[in-house]
């Protein structure tokens, strides 16, 4: 590992009806984004327990990207606010753990948001490259 360039790993939370569709669409267009990713799909981004974000960062991921439903959410009109509250809490928990807040990112990804998704992932990847690996205790 030491000889290789650092390749940050990103966990993406997507949503079944909106952002996962957008990420599928990105693939359909054969648009590239960093492959050191893993995508977990949930019904809605407001389901994300802040603990899961911290768990990911403590288990080996270098960043967590919440691909939120945004205003397209089929369940909740205020989905963005609710998801933001989960992310805020995760940021506070990260601070307590000594994890940089820049490792957690949230953005609404609509069902045809291929280009925004790719841009977000590339920028986030670059941010994480600069941060280096998570300094995990123990």
């Amino acid at each position, binding site marked *: 590992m030491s000889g290789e360039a650092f390749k940050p790993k990103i966990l993406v939370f997507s949503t079944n*009806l909106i952002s996962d569709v957008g990420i599928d669409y990105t693939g359909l267009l054969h648009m590239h984004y960093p492959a050191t990713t893993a995508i977990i799909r*949930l019904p809605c981004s407001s389901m994300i327990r802040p603990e899961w974000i911290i768990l990911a960062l403590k288990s080996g991921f270098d960043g967590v990207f919440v691909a939120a439903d945004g205003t397209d959410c089929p369940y909740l009109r205020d989905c963005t606010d609710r998801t933001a509250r989960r992310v805020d809490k995760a940021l506070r928990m990260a601070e307590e753990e000594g994890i940089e807040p820049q490792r957690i990112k949230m953005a609404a990804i609509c069902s045809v948001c291929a280009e925004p998704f790719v841009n977000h992932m590339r920028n986030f990847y670059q941010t994480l490259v600069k941060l280096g690996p998570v300094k995990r205790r123990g």
Partner: protein
Amino acid sequence: MDEPRIGVYVCWCGGNISDVVNVEKVVEEIKKEPGVIVARHFMFMCSEAGQKMIENDIKTHQLNAVVVASCSPKLHEATFRNVVVRAGLNPYMYYHANIREQVSWAHGDNPEEATRKAIRHVRMAVAYLRHAKPLEKIKVDVTPSALIIGGGIAGLRAALDLARMGVAVHLVEKEPFLGGNTARLGEVYPYGRRGSEIAAELIRELLKHDNVAIYTNAEVTSIKGFIGNFEAEIRVKPRYFKGKCPNIMEAIKACPVKVPDEHSFGAKMRTAIRLPPYPGAYPDIPAIDMEACTKCGECLKACGDKIDFAQEEQVIRVKVGSVITATGFKPYEPREGEYGYKTYGEVVTLPQLIGILAESNGGGELVVNGRKIRSIAFIYCVGSRQKPSGDEKANTYCSRYCCNATMYTSLKILEKYPGVRLYHLYRDIRTYGKHELMYEEACRRGVVFLKYSEDDPPKVRKEDGKLVVTVKDLLTEGIEVEIPVDLVVLVTGMEPRPNEQLNEILKLPVGRDGFYQEVHPKLRPVETTLAGFFIAGTAQGPKDIKEALASASAAAAKAAGIVLKKQLELEPFVARVNPDKCNLSQKCIAECPYGAISIKEYDGKGRKAWVNAALCKGCGACVAVCPTGAIEIQGLTNEQIEDMIKAAAREV
């Protein structure tokens, strides 16, 4: 579940996956995972042979859970759930790993990393299944009736289809008369029948059925409940007329009110008394527009015994199993001064022109506002295909019907009033399908087509009392052409109807254009993400009459598919409380947007949160806020998600 015995099936998708992802390597790695009994790769898992292979393995190796790693779950998750069911497993002992859209197609630039990502995705699927439990679909009883909101042609068509299938229908129309936008049109493509005749025919057929309740001058003011069992509240405004009045024309004459007449798209004026606007309109009883009425009492002198100002609003509650929203469109109303609209009387919209033509009785001369019309300029794409600028709302879409309607209307004008010169100032001509023949015919008949640039649209001015249109024609290298005309027709598009109040009640997803949004334009074109709610007609987006009717029949079939069943089966992914963990923080109750969570006495465990599974939509908002992790989505538990995170985090 018992010890997990998981089968993993990695699909090549012909080469779509295997050209990028090293499928052998994925299989080799995944075989090392605890619980994985068999792992294989194959050319096409969705093929007959692929499905058979999985079925055989389930039986031969006593598998109790299956992963297929292939395309997006949106395509084949249902396919493979059925495969495991055929082999005797519960459909929810299955997880679908996406390694095509989210791996091979996205990472063709990096096969090595793509293979690692595929391994992560398959590991997550295996982790999910280690704690999966068989789930039963949720069964609910169904009310065998449907609510249709909107009595235009789409609502009428859906009502008629449902009534014929034996489904009781409640049809709610906001206006005092059925028919919607189509009933306001004159002759329409292809057979030259009037829009009002089409509406009248649907109404006539509908009235033959005794399982239809029609509410006009009415609005839906609340809908509660869930798929199969909704309760809707309908408020019916009074008409203030008890029946037909033989002296109605005298009452009209006596009424001092003058407001734009909806039926002619504002081309004419009406009084506060609204008459049935076309032959066959329903109901055949006038209605007083109380917002316009001055209560002067003049009409009482002519129709005193038929008018009753004491009538009150009625509130009606109905039970239905399904809801179709067919609230139609709003014709784009040009801004004052847009191409001279409302500045010059001789600038009208296409719907207004169609109304004017319907009123004109031929006779060789077309007369508008007392003026003989010998030349007309049509300006296309007014209110459609707008360029977004700043925060202003722009209709970026094409309104779809207008090129065809303009072409048809032009041919009708040339047929009835030969010699009228027609100029079409267009951006692009989109006479798709059979309509192309009308375009060819219009060219043959001498209609002049001038193509303008969206950056330099035509200008309308008045000179010596006559309209002059200036346009730079792209087809002749941008030469500026000046056309003196008698009439300018703005070919206006469709806009979403401003349904704020209804949207607040229905909570249907609205797309970026402001129209109601389907789940998927191809796979589920009339369904919404809200179970039991369907959309039909132009409420969903611009459509022509035949497309609106087709979508209405589709929505009726889908609604019937629900309400004609005695019981419904719903996906089991709903929230569930573990009473042993619940500390009654009640945060979930405050968080739930559907009011699905309440407090219940559990035997021996006291009062704890409880989820009504039929009301829960499975969004999971409650899961995130529970301080003790007591509330979870079944089929996607906290333990499953945490295991998936850990599985994906491991080095590959």
